[in-house]
Structure formats: C-alpha cells, structure tokens
C-alpha cells in the first residue's frame, strides 16, 4: 500500500539497524512518548532487533490509560441515565472504572455509542432533541481539534442538548513532568508525530533547551521509528541536544494553524490528574467559560472522587519507565485484556496490551 509499504521496507530497516549499531557505544534510555509508537515497536518485532545498549521506555502517551477513574465513573453514571446518549471512541469502552467499564454499563442498559468522530455525536444530538448527547472526549492534541469543532458546530447550530466530557491531555507538560522527576532515567525522546502534525514543533524547543535532552519528532512505521532512534542516538553519542523532525512528510514547523485555532477558541489549559501518575500542571484541556453550556461537568456536575481506593494496577510505574509491563506482578495472570486491572491492558495504545498481545509465550 502506497505511503505505508515504503516505511515497512525490510532493506531500509536493516540499513538503519546497521547505522544504529555502528553509532551506539554506550547504554541509552530512549522514551517513545506515544502509545502508537510502542505498538509499532512491539508489533513489528523491533525491540528485539535493537542493540542491547538501547533500552526503549514506553511513555505516558496513551490518552485512554491516563484518563482519571473519576471521569470514567462519571461517563458510566451519565450513560445509565434515561435521557442521556453517551458517545465515545471505541478505545474507552473496555477501560475499567472504579467498579465497571462502559462496556459493562452498556450491557446494563446504558445507551453508549461508539463513534469515529465527535461530529457524528453532534448529528445524533440534532436527531434526538429530547435526549442529552454527551461526547466523552479523550485524547491528546491529535483528537482535540475535532472535539473543539464539534462544540463550535453545536454552538453555531444552537444545539443545547450536546456537551463534551473533556479528558484531554497535552504532551509537552508530560515531558516536563518526566524530566523534572529527579529519578528520571530518560536520555532522549521520540516525540509523538501525530500530536506535532496538529501543534507543530515550537512547544518542544524550550524543553530541549531547559533539560538539554534530544527530542526527535517521529512517525509510527518501522522505518520512521528506527530513523528516529538513530537520530536520538547520534545526538547522544555526540553530546548534543536538538529538536529534530524525522516525520517531515507529515509534520510541518507551524503545525495545522486552523486546528490550533479551534482548540484555542474552545479549550483552555488547566491542571489535570493523570491516572497512575498524578496531577500535572496545565496539562489538561478544559472548556472555556464561553462554552460552559457544552461542558458536561458544568451541566451534570463534577465527578465524585472515591477516596482511599487503592488501585492494584501499576500503570504509573510503567508509564514513567520504572518497570516494564511483564515486571508487574499482575501482568498476564490477575490482569489480562479480558479482565483488566488497568487501562494500559485494554487500550489500543497501552504498553501492557502491546506486550500481552505480541510478546506472550
């Protein structure tokens, strides 16, 4: 298939592997930020092809994994109300809340629709004027423009029965949090290509300067990933730190200005809790005052935080790179994709799901 086969080319892959091998002289810890990259690395068998000195750390770039339990519980609660249609992306469905998942809520009668775009939710709202339609908006900067646009469209159409339950998170504050952890072992980053498609490169310059760490904006196919790794390793071996763009065919310096403007119009940055990790300052997108009528939290109330409930899931340690999924005592026994303890086991971008699916046996 055009634009994919070229980036899964075995000859190119092995050429890049040789370049990496001839460049690396000492151990390096490289974090791929995005869960899509983690899956690419595992699915194509790349982790086992890399030289031993390079250890990939699977970052927190799985938006479903870091969505707080309280927000999932809120979504479940809303879905069980008679007058609510709850819409979300398929990824959210199996993620466990504090007692059940949305999938289980659907089996108990919740009206839950899986959509591919929030604009479809606006259509559902238009077609069901007697119902409240809530879109559970999960994702990084990549999905934020479409979710913002859904609010702008609903606003323009004067729809009052549409709202967004925003669980949006942002990548740069997460990198900041990882680097400011005194125990961090990360030497360099593969930044998430699709996030930068929207946002461009400018947010990453200050991070490179402040933490003196190489950041390479990288794609998701084997050739992309290996080229990104080689670019990070080359900088590290030369004692350099720069922002580089491996994913040039998709990411431009300024990003998608229209999309950025939609996000800016609808959302503002506030502190957000990341499941398993904790609060990260200014890392979440929340609806602005002007659009509060479309904010599900304003409309239906803030979620109740269940205090004192200890999660068995060690997703936080995994997403900070402190342990690998198989090091978790529950991996593969108490926690499987069918009976997950935490989100990384069921999300399509979760590190545990990647290891469980492709590396078991």
């Amino acid at each position, binding site marked *: 298939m055009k634009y994919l086969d070229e980036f*899964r080319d075995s000859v190119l892959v092995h050429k890049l592997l040789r370049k990496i091998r001839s460049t690396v002289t000492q151990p390096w810890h490289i974090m791929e930020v995005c869960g899509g990259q983690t899956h690419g690395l595992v699915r194509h068998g790349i982790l*086992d*092809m890399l030289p031993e000195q390079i250890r990939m750390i699977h970052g927190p770039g799985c938006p479903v994994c870091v969505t707080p339990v309280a927000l999932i519980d809120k979504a479940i609660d809303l879905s069980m109300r008679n007058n609510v249609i709850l819409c979300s992306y398929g990824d959210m*469905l199996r993620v466990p809340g504090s007692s059940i998942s949305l999938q289980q809520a659907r089996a108990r009668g919740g009206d839950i629709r899986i959509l591919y775009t929030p604009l479809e939710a606006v259509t559902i709202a238009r077609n069901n004027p007697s119902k409240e339609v809530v879109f559970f908006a*999960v994702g990084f900067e990549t999905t934020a423009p479409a979710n913002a646009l859904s609010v702008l469209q609903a606003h323009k159409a004067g729809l009052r029965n549409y709202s967004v339950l925003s669980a949006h998170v942002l990548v740069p504050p997460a990198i900041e949090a990882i680097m400011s952890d005194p125990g961090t072992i990360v030497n360099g980053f593969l930044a998430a290509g699709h996030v930068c498609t929207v946002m461009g490169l400018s947010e990453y310059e200050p991070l490179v300067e402040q933490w003196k760490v190489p950041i390479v904006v990288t794609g998701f196919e084997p050739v992309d990933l290996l080229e990104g790794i080689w670019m990070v390793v080359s900088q590290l071996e030369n004692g350099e730190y720069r922002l580089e763009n491996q994913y040039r065919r998709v990411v431009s310096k300024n990003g998608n200005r229209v999309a950025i403007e939609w996000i800016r119009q609808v959302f503002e940055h506030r502190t957000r809790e990341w499941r398993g990790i904790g609060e990260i300052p200014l890392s979440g997108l929340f609806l602005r005052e002007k659009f509060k009528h479309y904010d599900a939290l304003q409309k239906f109330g803030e979620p109740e935080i269940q205090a004192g409930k200890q999660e068995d899931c060690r997703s936080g340690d995994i997403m900070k790179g402190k342990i690998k999924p198989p090091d978790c005592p529950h991996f593969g026994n108490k926690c499987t*994709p069918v009976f997950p303890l935490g989100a990384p086991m069921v999300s399509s971008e979760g590190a545990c799901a990647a290891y*469980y699916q*492709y*590396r*078991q046996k």
Partner: protein
Amino acid sequence: MPFRDFDSITLGHGGGGKLTQTLLENGVFSLLNNDWLTGQDDAANLVLDGKYAFSTDTFVVSPVIFPGGTIGDLAVNGTVNDLAVSGAKPEYLSLSFILEEGLQGAEFWEILLSIRNACSETGVKVVTGDTKVVEKGKGDKIFINTTGIGKIHSSAKLGMKNIRPGDKILLSGPPARHGIAIMSKRQGLEFETTLTSDTRPLHLICMQLIEQFESGIRFMRDPTRGGVATVLHDIVRHTNLGIEIRENSLPLENEVAGACEMLGFDPLFVANEGLFVCVVSPEISDACLHTLQTWKHGAQAAVIGNVVNEHPGGVLMHSKIGGKRMLPQASGELLPRIC
C-alpha cells in the same frame, strides 16, 4: 409485489393465524417451493444413509442488507460452509426467523430472495422452519437461525487430531472483506468503499479438494467471527503444536489493508463469510495451492505458514521487516481505535 397486503411486519404475522399463513404462503413457500414445505407437516421426513454432518448457526448481523449480500445469504452460506469444511455435501436446511415488529415488507422480501438464490446456488433444500415476531425494540429487524445436514464424503479424513508438525497452512483468498464491508455501513463509522462482502458457498471447492487429495487435507475451517487469527489459535490450542505465519505471504487487498489501517484493525481478526483455512500435508501443498488458485474465487489463495513443534499453543508471526511477534488472541468485540 407478493406482500401487497402489508408493508411492514406486525405482531399478527407471528400469531399463527391468517396473517402468518399469508406471510408463509405468499412469501417463504412461494420462493422456496418444495414438497417438504408445501406438505406443511410438523416435521420433515428425510431418508438418510451413511455418515452425516449436522450444524447450526444463528445470524444477527446489522445492517441486514449490506454491500455484497444480505443476512439471508449469510444464513444459508454460513451453515452450508460449516458443513462443507467438515467434508460434507450440504443437503437439507431448517430456516427460522425472529422478526421484529415494524420490519419493512420490502426488506424482508429482499432477504427471502437472497435466501432462495443462495439455496439454488448450493442445491440445498429448506425442509422445515419457523417464524416468530417480537415487539418493536425487542429485536434488531430480523434474526435468522439455520441448521443443516449433509453427507460426509467417504474420502474425508478431517480433524484437528490429524494435524502434524510440518503441515502447511493455506488461505483460500484475501481476508477481512466481509467485516470491512459491514463496518463501512455502521453508524458512526461510515466510510466510502467499493468493497463487498465475500459471502459465498464453499462446498464445491471443499468437495473438490477432498476428492483430489483425500487424507492429505487434514483440516478445514471457515474463519468467520474472530477472523483467521481465531482459527489459527483454535488449532494450536487443540493440538498443542505451534504455528508460524509470514506477514509477507498474506494475500491482503489494498482497499482492505487501507481500511484496517484507518480503523486500527488487524485484518487477521476481521470476519469473513466466504473464506477458508486449510491445513494440508507438506507433500500435497503445492498441488493443493494450484487447485485453489484455479477455483474462480481462489486466484489469491496462498500458503501463509506452517505447523511447528516450537512454541506450543502459540502463533508466531514473522513481520515484513524480519521481526517476530506472537499473534494475539481476539479478546472480544472489535473496537476502532482513537487516533
């Protein structure tokens, strides 16, 4: 238009009275006309001799009419194929409907027509059946159950217990067409594609392979829900052997591959309705592939892998770039990914 008396199904059509009679006589019986049905006995009388395969399946697909077929095609072909991959020539079917009040007469008629056409194509006879109607909201337009019996070919020696290390795994054509065709019409996911379902009967090609290669054909199965990956996992679980497959050998169509990339699906987990996996002894694999490729739907048939002693219970995939990974088991509903 044979349903001129009504434009949609009502509860009365399942009441057993005059409306039921009209529905059956003007609809089902007129299309599937045979002595068993017109006799209207409580049970069909059949004269059987020899070893038979017996299989049942229920069909609940949404939408009920989709690119390349209807739930009616699936209901006939699905059971026909379960018999065919068991080495049996499908002969008789039962056909039961659960209709939802409000189902459009025209839609039901189209489904009945596709059932008739599928029966004619396979030569299978519908000899008994049932119709029930449930209140609106208690069904999803129409559910169909079919049960079939067919005589097992005397040369068929099929079963997972016959599978040996070294056996080759053949796939009769490109995977995932049906699932992607259905998905393209689901609310919230609609996308434009010219892809059609692969629903089709497999009995002729299955019989041909058994006649030609007899016990060289170890095992056949049609990978419907759960896709090819689920069949491969069934094999390794039951035999406690391993399987190795090569990503490069998979006969993937560009349009299917593109849709799967977009939705985040692995084509090996997507449903098929006219495809089969065939495990054969290594000696006959080339000849068997040749037979498959000369079948009218088999141009893209391929040897996708082989059975091994290593990693018992696991399916290993050699990725296009020379890496290795285990092929996971399907964990339930296929869910499109976020970004």
